[in-house]
């Protein structure tokens, strides 16, 4: 159901209503699934009961504060998001399409995660998404449906249209919140009459039904402002020709038309009004907010959402976290600078051993300094930087011999270092306690927090902070002169050198930066595990880190994070889970395992880890070398730009007309 709506016109009430229906349904369904079918309602009710009668609640004050914050932020973000989408959408994409998308991308994953747990639920969802993309492309090709080019719909909004947009946002927020409030009221009344809702909460229900629409109104205004920030500017946002054309709107639009289709598509994603508002940059901001809210408050949400076993899950996520940091660090070396490093585990080991030797009684053996546990816990923080710097120094030292080498040799040499360093740690047992490893490594300290090997929550927050800082640092590095120099040497060293890039310095900096982050990860790992041993560091680990970067998307920061989580899940969770499932004789997997072990007696799901990774690597290299989430530049490189369509329109413009001149502008 597509309407020939041009955003330049004021939307009459009928079309606003259609948009309202479309997005309200689209966003309400996942919200309802979360709140009523999953545990959203439980979160709200437990928080309130805790606030109203603290004596009878199991939760202490800090937890309650966190829960309330979560509820406020989550639902406010949801309503604001709805308002934003209603404001921004041009209505060109049909309702059913959007509803199908939301079903596949939000509702089904919610159900899967609810029933199967976070990791396996997400893994299955990813599989379903893959299938969905494939099927959708097939259907589109067969039915010859092509999505309309985004440029047709871009227009500059004058003041009247801007007001209309804002009004739409406010209306959207208000009505969405109202519908949601009414629905919630109905559900709560049903619960009340069936006796499961305490009377006390009835007051809250009434309050909420009034508050939500009001909140919706104000959040709608907020979203309207956010949406308008991304609209094409009325005057000269991009420099236009003077007086070449009367209307302002055509100038900026023509500038966009000069861009190639792929670039225009990328630019159009950001602008308002938008054909695909769910994919726009503004919507991504909302997704970020929701994600951050979930991550921040996850430890208190987990017991309510997933039941028992929180500590184990949090410990697992803490472990996944340092893989993310390692992947980000390796991304600098392999992704940005294009230096294939197969020995990355060496720097990780160095970071771990630094804390291992300083943060435990080994300090006594090696340096003859008496070991004071409490003091060392506090020194963890400055030592993070120290270990990272030491690792960076070794990055420079180990990178120096490789400066003149080309890709393959570089890989082998770094692989060699990745082998030598653990051997050194193993054999120099006067300092490193050799094969027995170092035990009793200290956890860090923070005022007011009990921190030890058995408390996963502080480690969880620590790794979140570290990951946040690492991402920030990576983004700044990538966008700096150094980052651009890295990309230059990745593409063509000789050209880069001729353009004035100091090859030696740039490469050494790449190694040093990569090693810096792995040093941090190493320290975290040593502290969390409480010990270091040379078996933790082997070439197999280096391959896993490389797999994270490659599978996720070389050179792309969000891609690498996703790759790290995917690889970690396969490595630690999925195969181990399959093993535990298969060990249970009542399970279907058991029969599968028995059947396979008839042919291959040595088969366990844990054993075939390398097989799985190897096949994934080969398949990805052949079919999708840019990784799961490619950076735009990479995708253009590796696909040789065969996604570019020829702009037929520009071929038949006669010279001498103003439109002809625009073709001469090079992007």
């Amino acid at each position, binding site marked *: 159901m597509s309407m020939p709506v041009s955003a330049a016109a004021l939307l009459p009430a009928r079309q606003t209503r259609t948009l309202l229906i479309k997005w309200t349904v689209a966003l309400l369904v996942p919200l309802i699934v979360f709140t009523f079918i999953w545990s959203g309602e439980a979160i709200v009710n437990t928080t309130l009961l805790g606030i109203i009668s603290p004596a009878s609640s199991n939760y202490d004050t800090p937890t309650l504060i966190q829960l309330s914050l979560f509820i406020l932020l989550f639902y406010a973000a949801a309503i604001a998001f709805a308002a934003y989408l209603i404001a921004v959408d041009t209505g060109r994409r049909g309702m059913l399409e959007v509803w199908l998308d939301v079903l596949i991308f939000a509702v089904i994953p919610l159900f899967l995660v609810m029933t199967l747990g976070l990791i396996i639920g997400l893994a299955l969802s990813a599989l379903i998404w893959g299938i969905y993309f494939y099927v959708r492309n097939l259907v589109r090709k067969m039915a010859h449906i092509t999505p309309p080019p985004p440029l047709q719909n871009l227009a500059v909004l004058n003041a009247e249209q801007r007001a209309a947009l804002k009004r739409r946002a406010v209306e959207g927020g208000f009505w969405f919140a109202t519908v949601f409030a009414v629905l919630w009221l109905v559900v709560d009344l049903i619960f009340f009459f069936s006796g499961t809702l305490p009377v006390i909460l009835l007051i809250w229900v009434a309050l909420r039904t009034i508050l939500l629409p009001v909140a919706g109104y104000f959040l709608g205004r907020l979203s309207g402002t956010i949406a308008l920030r991304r609209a094409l500017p009325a005057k000269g946002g991009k420099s236009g020709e003077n007086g070449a054309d009367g209307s302002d709107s055509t100038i900026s639009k023509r500038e966009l038309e000069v861009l190639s289709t792929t670039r225009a598509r990328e630019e159009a994603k950001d602008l308002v009004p938008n054909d695909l508002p769910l994919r726009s940059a503004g919507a991504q901001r909302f997704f970020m907010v929701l994600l951050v809210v979930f991550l921040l408050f996850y430890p208190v949400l987990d017991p309510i959402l997933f039941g028992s076993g929180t500590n184990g899950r949090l410990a697992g996520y803490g472990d996944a976290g340092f893989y993310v940091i390692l992947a980000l660090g390796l991304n600098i070396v392999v992704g940005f600078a294009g230096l294939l490093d197969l020995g990355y585990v060496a720097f990780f080991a160095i970071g771990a051993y630094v804390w291992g030797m300083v943060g435990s009684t080994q300090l006594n053996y090696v340096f003859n300094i008496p070991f004071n546990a409490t003091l060392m816990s506090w020194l963890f923080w400055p030592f993070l930087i120290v270990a990272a710097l030491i690792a960076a120094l070794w990055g420079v030292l180990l990178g120096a011999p490789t400066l003149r080498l080309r890709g393959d040799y570089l890989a082998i040499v770094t692989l060699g270092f990745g082998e030598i360093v653990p051997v050194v740690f193993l054999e120099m047992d006067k300092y490193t306690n050799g094969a027995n490893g170092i035990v009793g490594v200290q956890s860090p300290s923070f005022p007011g927090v009990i921190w030890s090997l058995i408390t996963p929550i502080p480690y969880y927050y620590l790794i979140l902070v570290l990951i946040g800082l690492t991402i920030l640092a990576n983004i700044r590095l990538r966008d700096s002169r150094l980052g651009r120099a890295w990309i230059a040497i990745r593409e063509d060293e000789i050209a880069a050198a001729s353009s004035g890039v100091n090859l030696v310095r740039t490469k050494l900096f790449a190694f040093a930066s990569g090693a810096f982050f792995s040093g941090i990860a190493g320290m975290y790992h040593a502290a969390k595990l409480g010990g270091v041993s040379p078996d933790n560091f082997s070439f197999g680990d280096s391959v896993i880190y490389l797999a994270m970067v490659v599978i996720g998307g070389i050179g792309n920061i969000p891609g690498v994070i996703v790759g790290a989580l995917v690889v970690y899940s396969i490595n630690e969770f999925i195969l181990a889970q399959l093993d535990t499932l298969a060990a249970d004789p009542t399970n279907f997997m058991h029969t599968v395992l028995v059947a396979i072990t008839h042919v291959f007696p040595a088969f366990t799901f844990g*054993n075939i880890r390398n097989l799985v990774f190897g096949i994934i*690597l080969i398949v990805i290299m052949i079919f999708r070398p840019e990784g799961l989430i490619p950076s735009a530049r990479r995708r253009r490189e590796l696909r040789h730009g065969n996604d570019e369509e020829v702009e037929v329109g520009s071929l038949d413009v006669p010279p001498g007309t103003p439109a002809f001149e625009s073709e001469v502008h090079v992007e």
Partner: protein
Amino acid sequence: MTLFVQELVVGLATGAIYALIALGYTMVYGIIELINFAHGDIFMMGTLFCISIMNLMGVTTTSHPTGWALISIMLVSCLGGMLGCAILGVVIERIAYRPLRNAPRLAPLISAIGVSLVLENVGLLWKGINYVSFPQIFPQVYYYIGPISITSVNILVIVISLILMVALQWMVSSTRIGRAMRAVAQDREAAALMGVNVDRIIAITFFIGAALAGAAGFIYGLQYGSTIFYIGFQLGLIAFTAAVLGGIGNLVGAMLGGVLIGVISALASLIPDSNNGGFGLPHGGAAWTEAIIFAILILILVFRPSGLLGQQTPEKV
């Protein structure tokens, strides 16, 4: 002194095995400029193939065939192993490397790592996680030249390697296919223009290289008596060092490098244990062999990347 010469002899035998594997590396690199990470694992599969073939023929670790039976068993298992590896090599090339022939350098390298992982795991699934014993069918006789002892197995290893190396050298220098291989290694497009079927030649190169690895697997099994799924990685890296030492792309260099590395690793075990006081390395040179070999690799690549017998080729724009 006798210890030195003794180690030298042992090193020669080990080096012969390294040389055969190194030949595979250097041939593939010469022709498609790809370091075949999976080559070491092809060697490992070769050992497993030989064991399986011998088991099929009824030979176990306790049987001691003699005379014609011995010779025929050895021939069959050696050739069978070589054939199996050769086919494996061709299949790998077809599946994992050919689609990536024109891709940027990173792609086939990572694909090779993937193949290596797959092969390792296949070896694990096939023969289990423990050491698999190789039937020591060749009678172990000690010959003495003065105080130095050399076993018949060592001699056999050296002899087989020599035969294969000479055969390879003859093939490359005197036959049409050899000429075609040299042409493709020198300039792939020009060779295609001259009527050489490049795809077929590359497949043949993989075939021969893998066959040599299979032979190496056979004699490795005879010499050391057992195999396990992860030896491919270790030996592969050492053999690659040998190839680089001799000059990658150069056949004689690979042979020379292999022998040199074998000798060096044997001599490294002579380094005393510094934990016992005095000069040496902690836990003695034997524990550091790997590190020493990699150190050599790094030194060569830094100071003389073209290897001992290679030519310095400047990097073209």
